[in-house]
């Protein structure tokens, strides 16, 4: 098995794929949005419960590949207790990590557990899988009515 594949499919990611956390609709969610990747058909709904400016609860539903499912699972875990601004900053950092050239590494330390997705940048066709949940979160926080797509 190639090293890059192991980097992509880390045990943590495979675990979140098998047993996604926060995989449910959130009753009384203050915000939710739908995301869609028209290239592969992945679909996701992200739910957020806001308490003022703070994300109290986050969850998701939908279907997709291991990368998109694990990304949504770990994202919803990471969001709890963060302010909207902190969540957006995290998205920005995450996005840079999965899209940047390897030699221009971002501060993955600040991403905590989400750093396991660093391997995605070696797989350009999979970047959208990793970022779909985050784009959808962004739409939910901006209260966009139209489903977002990765295209």
């Amino acid at each position, binding site marked *: *098995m*190639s090293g*890059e*594949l192991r980097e*992509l*499919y880390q045990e943590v990611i*495979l675990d979140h794929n*098998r047993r996604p956390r926060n995989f449910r609709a959130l009753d009384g969610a203050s915000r939710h949005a739908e995301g869609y990747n028209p*290239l*592969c*058909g*992945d*679909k996701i709904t992200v739910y957020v419960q806001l308490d003022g400016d703070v994300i109290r609860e986050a969850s998701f539903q939908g*279907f*997709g*590949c*291991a*990368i998109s*499912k694990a990304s949504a699972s770990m994202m919803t875990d990471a969001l709890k207790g963060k302010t909207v601004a902190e969540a957006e900053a995290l998205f920005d950092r995450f996005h840079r990590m999965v899209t940047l050239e390897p030699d221009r590494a971002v501060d993955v330390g600040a991403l905590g557990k989400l750093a396991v997705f660093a391997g995605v940048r070696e*797989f350009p*066709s*999979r970047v959208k*899988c990793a970022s779909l949940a985050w784009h959808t979160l962004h739409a939910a926080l901006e209260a966009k009515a139209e489903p977002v797509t990765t295209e």
Partner: protein
Amino acid sequence: MKIATAVPPESAALTDEMASRRADFPILRELVRGKPLVYLDNAATTQKPQAVIDALTHFYTRDNANVHRGVHLLSERATARYEDARIKAARLLHAASPREIVFVRGATEGINLVAETFGRAHVGPGDEVVVTEMEHHSNIVPWQMLCAEKGATLRVVPVTAEGELPLDEYERLLGDRTRIVALVHVSNALGTINPVRDMIARAHRHGVPVLVDGAQAVAHQAVDVQTLDADFYVFSGHKLYGPTGIGVLYGKAALLDAMPPYQGGGDMISTVSFEGTRYNVAPYRFEAGTPDIAGAIGLASAIDYVSAIGFDRIAPYEAALLDYATERLAAVPGLRLVGTARQKSAILSFVMDGVHPHDIGTILDREGVAIRTGHHCCQPLMHRLGLDATARASLAFYNTREEVDALTAALGRVKEMFG
């Protein structure tokens, strides 16, 4: 392993012949991430033999000029070669005349052309257009757009769980208001070969013309539009070992002659004045602007190439390879084949327990095995089958049993990772 030993002598000769053809395709010598390329995405596009690549180079090196205009030698040469390509396309489809061949960008443009000309002229409010549930989006959306514009209704022939069209249900959809049937010859997602000859005959009994999407058929079997009695037949050159950007719309001469123009511009006119314009005859009426001359010449070279091998050789070889691949894939634990029609082309769609097709595709790519994953531009079909996506291996005559073995070995890696 029962590979070469199980092959009867006659088909062993066929196997050797096809294996020797691999040398005609320079790209098949490519290494992918250090491993030999195993190209199993032929339904998306086929690779090009050196002869086609050379034809393009030769045209731009020796013959390049615009067609149908110049009085100079190069223009005459370019025109002759472009029109020769039309003759070859007519022969490939067994059309009655090269006049029935319209060059387009590909199957998609061919369908749009028919929807926007024939469709606009014949479909009105309350009329119906019949398509099937297994159509590619390119044979759904143009008709949907036409129906929305005209206040017409799209009627859909359902697909069985095996991936076949129930003909009695098809016939029930044909009625007084049906203006055209648009039907795929071979399903790109499932490999089903539809009984188009029978389906066309049934439509004709109701006085309804039929457009056949032959994108997945022309590279794998002989097509005779006159025997089929198809009214329109479309295909893309790049799925027939030719270049991208060129395709063919076949239309019966009587239909093409009566159709209004598609796009306006040069070459499609006979005289132009500000008081009014007279249009050129078919097929030129439908070829506004400078066409893809090099593309047509490249396509002609591809037609020569496959004709020299012969579909009487290609079809049985691919059928045997499909049987072998079906057997090998069915033996992979947790793998389920999607699309098990009785008449199938060499396309294998499948899903695996607990693994999304996208992940299968990524892991296979690292082993040098190129397949397609996703909805294959057939979302209504995927919805009908209760799937979001499948993995798809699609074979061509240059694929081998060893490559099928490489596919199954790579699927073993998928099980290792996700097991």
